[in-house]
């Protein structure tokens, strides 16, 4: 202390107070930036050319954060193509998820009694709570897209080839971590959407032979999802998966830097890898060029995300989870639609005629214990990831040129198309032309589901509250309810929807009977609370008996459907 004090006094005496403060501040700043003075940083941010000798290399050898990043990039990798910045964006969204996630963690309790009310609390009582939740949710969805695109890009440019096979392998692990993070986070709001999407997801594990029930029990903590399952998914979501993610990001990025960003395929001789041998005139220094670009990308991505969440995007929150009530048309999260579509295969070999297929199924079930659900959901589904992992090790072609990789690129495109097809099959409406994957009950129930779904909002519920005039209305093209144009419009929509279902059969071959009529009843139950009932009378197309289908919902003035 005394020595510093003496030095300080001496410095002040010789140079004056002002110069001493400036000198000391600059020293502190230089320690913080691992070797750059304020003047250097200013030069970087202004885009000044580097002085010689270049002080901007020093942070790469002295500091932790900059030593992770390369000192220079090859000029050819700095335009949008070939990387499209997708790897960088993946890491950025991972960071955004961690930051917003920690904020949400403060207000969240992972127990069935408290979880849903935590969500309501975050939305209604926490400043920026809803904003953070929207950012977290939208960021997660975008992250899945970005990570997938990153993989598609790497495949297309052949960047997975020697020497980057292991980089690709860790990348597939990171894809699985991303999906796992997104999926485990899905359960936490503890609403109907969460509960049933995750029930579908985990019940696939249950079907697996030998280990399936054990894995399922480990995940759920009980035969059904309850307090144990919620806590386990929470711990997966906030501890285990982020930890695995961080470790694999570290390995992945180390490999990226070790081998360099792969050059555009057309720039390299076949079978060689020149990414590390950058001639001096092709070098683009990290400081200032790459750094300022990245700062811009961060700013743009965060701004788009934030503006979206402040305006049009709000994370869904349905009613409290209820194990006793399964809403119609329950689906897995969209990035698992393909798996759900895969599970809809009813036969071991789907292309055979039904009679032969049944025999084949029976043979496999009796001899090998292999049912279609096990084959398609448990064996083929996870096999997709294994296939992705081994792609670089089984692809014999050394060339990265597009023209010389016709087979692999075609296979890749076919794989992508298959995943898209299966994803379409995963949603209740099925694939448009083939009808594969269609899930639907009686046409009358589908009409009601369309306009008044079990969960979420339908056209009937979106009618402004003051236009829900109490009364009973036949569904018709021109109901003519006074002062209720929206109500009239919905009645008209229902009418035409029913007409459509009368003339064209659904993929199960079922039509709404010609004599079907529907009516909508609106009753006032309480001040500000109305009951909406839709009832459809029709003749059942299978039994020929008259049937009545009714469905009702309560709607409150302030509920904002």
């Amino acid at each position, binding site marked *: 202390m005394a020595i510093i004090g003496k030095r300080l006094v001496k410095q002040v005496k010789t140079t004056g107070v002002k110069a001493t403060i400036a000198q000391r501040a600059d020293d502190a700043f230089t320690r913080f930036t691992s070797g750059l003075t304020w003047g250097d940083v200013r030069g970087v941010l202004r885009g000044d050319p580097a002085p010689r000798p270049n002080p901007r290399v020093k942070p790469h050898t002295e500091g932790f954060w900059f030593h992770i990043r390369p000192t220079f990039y090859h000029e050819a990798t700095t335009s949008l193509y070939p990387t499209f910045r997708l790897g960088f964006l993946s890491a950025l969204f991972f960071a955004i998820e961690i930051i917003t996630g920690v904020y949400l963690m403060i207000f969240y309790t992972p127990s069935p009694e408290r979880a*849903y009310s935590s969500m309501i609390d975050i939305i209604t*009582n926490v400043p920026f709570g809803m904003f953070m939740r929207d950012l977290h949710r939208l960021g997660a969805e975008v992250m899945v897209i970005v990570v997938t695109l990153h993989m598609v890009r790497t495949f297309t440019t052949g960047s997975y080839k020697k020497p980057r096979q292991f980089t690709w392998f860790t990348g597939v692990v990171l894809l699985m971590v991303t999906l796992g993070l997104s999926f485990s986070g899905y359960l936490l709001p503890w609403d109907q959407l969460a509960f049933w999407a995750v029930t579908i997801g985990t019940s696939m594990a249950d079907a697996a032979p030998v280990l399936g029930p054990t894995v399922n029990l480990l995940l759920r903590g009980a035969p059904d999802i309850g307090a144990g399952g919620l806590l386990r998914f929470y711990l997966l979501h906030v501890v285990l998966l982020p930890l695995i993610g961080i470790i694999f990001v570290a390995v992945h990025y180390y490999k990226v830097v070790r081998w360099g960003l792969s050059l555009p395929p057309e720039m390299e001789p076949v079978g060689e890898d020149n990414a590390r041998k950058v001639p001096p005139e092709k070098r683009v220094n990290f400081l200032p060029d790459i750094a300022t670009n990245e*700062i811009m990308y961060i*700013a743009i991505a*965060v701004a788009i995300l934030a503006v979206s969440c402040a305006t049009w995007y709000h994370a869904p929150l349905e009613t*409290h989870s209820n194990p006793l009530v399964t809403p119609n048309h329950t689906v897995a999260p969209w990035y698992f639609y393909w798996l759900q579509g895969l599970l809809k295969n009813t036969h071991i070999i789907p292309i055979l005629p039904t009679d032969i297929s049944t025999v084949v199924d029976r043979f496999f079930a009796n001899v090998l214990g292999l049912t279609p659900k096990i084959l398609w959901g448990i064996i083929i589904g996870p096999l997709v990831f294994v296939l992705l992992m081994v792609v670089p090790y089984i692809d014999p072609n050394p060339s990265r040129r597009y023209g010389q990789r016709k087979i692999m690129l075609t296979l890749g495109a076919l794989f992508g198309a298959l995943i898209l097809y299966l994803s379409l099959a995963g949603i209740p409406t099925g694939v448009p032309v083939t009808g594969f994957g269609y899930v639907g009950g009686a046409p009358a129930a589908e009409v009601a589901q369309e306009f008044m779904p079990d969960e979420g909002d339908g056209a009937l519920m979106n009618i402004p509250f003051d236009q829900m005039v109490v009364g009973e209305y036949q569904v018709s093209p021109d109901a003519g309810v006074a002062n209720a144009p929206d109500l009239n419009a919905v009645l008209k929509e229902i009418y035409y929807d029913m007409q459509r279902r009368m003339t064209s059969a659904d993929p199960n071959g079922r039509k709404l009977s010609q004599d079907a009529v529907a009516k909508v009843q609106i009753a006032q139950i309480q001040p*500000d609370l109305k009951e909406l009932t839709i009832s459809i009378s029709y003749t059942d197309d299978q039994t020929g008996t008259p049937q009545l289908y009714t469905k009702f919902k309560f709607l409150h003035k302030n509920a904002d459907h």
Partner: protein
Amino acid sequence: MSIIKKIVTFKPSFTLRVIFGLISVVGFLSACAIVGLGDLSRALGAQDAKYQARSIEDGALVYSQQCARCHGPDGKGIAGQGPALSSITFLGKVENGIEVTKSQRLIDIGWVGNLDGYIRAVTAAGIPLKSSNVWDVTHPAFGQSYGGNLRDDQIADVSLFIQNWRQAPYTEGVIDSPKPGEALGPKPTAVPLSPEQEAGKAAFLKYGCTACHAIKGVAQGAVGPNLSTIGADAANIITQADYKSSQGKATTASEYIHESIVSPNAYIAPKCPTGACVAGIMPQNFAQTIPATDLTNLVAYLASLK
């Protein structure tokens, strides 16, 4: 193609980076400002109202499934089953969020907490028969912690739904609980059933009628019409004009009851616990499934209920 090439090989100049970056930072900050200012002024309150409203909707569903059969769909109470919940005596009155009339019921029973607490406590934990001692029906314990089937959040929803009546509680046509210590008057002395009627009562229980119909002290079904006084009601119905214009052919109360069992769609009774009765709900095949003797006894039993 050249446009695509231009886009993918595009490298933003330093100036462009600064411009894009600044625009983005301004965009981000204004998004934060919009959200923050909204939260400060009224957005959180609006969200609160929205989710409270959704709670009331959920509560209405639970009420219609679990509570309406005894307290009535409009909460006005059903004699012998459950007292009114939408009456001013039970709820007091609220105007613009301020309580203008206190709940007389809470004062009478000496409940020191608030109305919400009372509703939730009774819904969750129930009331034993001996402490309510008014009617022959106990209040069941609905809370999962007390052996029922409702979660805590559902009980909170139901309570919000019931309190939603406080803006405009009913003052007439309600069946309130009597004050503690006051009985409802002398209980009617039960007329003993004849052996035939006794057999009819057994048939009523045996053929599943209890699932939909209520008879005071016997069954609590809440789908079809209440049959507690069907003997008297039947005699009344067959004299009505809308019965005569229907397909019904009965001329006595017993014939009407018989007809209602074997061909229920001949005439649709007007009043069911949850509103107007609907055709096609009651099974059409009792003529085949109930033996003739049981049917005769059943009609005799029902006709005796007056």
